[in-house]
């Protein structure tokens, strides 16, 4: 009970902090937080496949991109459409793509799954470049209207955009977290550990994988949609490129694959390193590369795993002392 109350207090403090963030830290850091939140949701969608189901995809950017393009196209072509329906249409595009691919991709795993996604991802990237009339080719779609919920446009009020984005991304994060707590979340980790046994226990593995796949695409679509609105630009390189498929994988690896909050930590580290390194050099990849090597070699469970091990060591060191004191 005490612990629960303490948790509530922390949650309230966290929410109040986020609510006053733009006032306290100004617009530059507010935008940093929005970027982090977008990539947190995107990385969580990757972790849903990689960490919780054991599926490595090299093409998650398809869903991120479909979310972005869907929303941008809706705002460009449908006059008077609200921001939420536009996001909804983007997410729907991502979900529709996942539904089309799911019958094929749920029957493979391991390298085949990864490579199949590499192929589909590149296909979508090239399509976006070639279908100039729809996607704007290399230029992408830019300067589409971004209506607010209460104001005409969010373009000139980044503070309002911050609140809208944070609510949508916050709800998405909560939904993904909640999912891990349900029986279905248990089946998901069961598939990761031992798909054959899940089958023999009476669960349908391909169908369960399909549901996870579509949900993962849904949240990648949410992230991509908000990302497009945030930059007021959706382009093949910015949203669909192979780099966009790898970024969340790196965040997940660095933060801690399989732990729910690991990817969020990974994104935070990613952003922090970016912020700091950019002051000295343009080659942020160099530093991220070194960090990734260290993590892969020495910290298979990422920084989250490292923190956990440290905490365990501290608590085991404490208990004997505590016992001594009692005696």
């Amino acid at each position, binding site marked *: 009970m005490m612990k629960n109350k303490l948790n509530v207090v922390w949650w309230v403090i966290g929410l109040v902090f986020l609510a006053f963030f733009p006032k306290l830290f100004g617009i530059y850091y507010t935008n940093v937080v929005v970027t982090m939140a977008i990539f947190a949701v995107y990385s969580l969608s990757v972790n849903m496949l990689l960490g919780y189901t054991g599926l490595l995809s090299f093409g998650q950017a398809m869903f991120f991109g479909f979310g972005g393009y869907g929303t941008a196209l809706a705002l460009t072509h449908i006059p008077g459409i609200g921001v939420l329906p536009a996001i909804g249409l983007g997410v729907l595009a991502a979900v529709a793509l996942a539904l089309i691919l799911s019958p094929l991709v749920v029957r493979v795993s391991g390298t085949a799954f990864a490579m199949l996604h590499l192929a589909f991802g590149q296909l979508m990237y090239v399509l976006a470049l070639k279908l100039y009339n729809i996607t704007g080719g290399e230029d992408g779609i830019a300067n589409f209207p971004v209506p607010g919920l209460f104001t005409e446009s969010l373009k000139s009020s980044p503070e309002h955009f911050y609140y809208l984005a944070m609510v949508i991304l916050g709800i998405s994060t909560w939904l993904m977290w*909640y*999912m891990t*707590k*349900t*029986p*279905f*979340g*248990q*089946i998901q*980790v*069961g598939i*990761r*550990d*031992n798909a*054959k*046994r*899940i*089958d*023999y*226990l*009476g*669960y*349908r*593995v391909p169908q*369960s994988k399909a*549901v996870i796949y579509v949900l993962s695409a849904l949240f990648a679509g949410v992230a991509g949609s908000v990302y497009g609105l945030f930059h007021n630009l959706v382009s093949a390189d910015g949203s669909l490129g192979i780099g966009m498929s790898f970024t969340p994988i790196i965040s997940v690896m660095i933060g801690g694959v*399989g732990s729910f909050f690991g990817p969020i930590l990974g994104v935070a580290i990613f952003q922090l390193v970016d912020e700091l390194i950019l002051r000295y050099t343009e080659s942020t990849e160099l530093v991220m590369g070194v960090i990734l090597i260290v993590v892969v070699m020495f910290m298979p469970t990422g920084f989250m795993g490292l923190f956990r091990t440290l905490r365990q060591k501290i608590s085991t060191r404490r208990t004997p002392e505590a016992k001594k004191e009692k005696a």
Partner: protein
Amino acid sequence: MNILETKDLKHSFGPLAVLFGVDLQIEEGERHAVIGPNGAGKTTLFNTITGTYHPTSGRVFFKGKDITGYKPYKLARIGIGRSFQITSTFTNLTAFQNIRLAILSKDGVRFNLLRPVEKMKKITEETDEMLKRINLYDDRNTPAASLSYGKSRALEISMALATNPELVLLDEFAAGMSKEETADAVALIRKLTEGKTVVIIEHDMDVVFSLADRITVLHYGKILATGKPEEIRNNQAVKDAYLGDLEV
């Protein structure tokens, strides 16, 4: 009545034939052992019955119904469970979570994204009850990968039984166990399979003769003999082919 029957079951891996027409008959409620030398096709027989492989030809019947080629999940749902020779648990999950996955399936909670599983009291109670019955309650929160060999085997067997199947096939449940662990496992199986039909594959003749009501001897992909333990013990063909120099 036979709960499980195979008719002329054949299976080949490419040009390599493993089963040459097996007519297995398992009576309802019995404990039946399938024995035979290495390479006789015992595990392949299990795998063709339980949907790991689709048999090359022949049919499998469960309670008179043709179940040839049924997928494992479907067999689980109609009441057939199996355990594996090589321990096949969820290694990163705790003993509790392992059993809970079986209980969830048994209670038909296979697709629920709305309620936290921790709040499903009935599921938690049933899982804990099962853990107590198999003497793993003290290891409730231990990851399966960290359990001792005997305990992880007990978990392996219990997962097959926790879905409450009518028919359960246990593939060498005592493989690699010490004498004491084997005795515990036999007691456990007696306790958990009351009223169920059990088919075991086993090499340990002490286990076979203490547990089985009837025995089928498989030899080079064919049934050599089926009968009560004494009949098998005294069967000349079986002695020649397999039991020959075993002190039984």
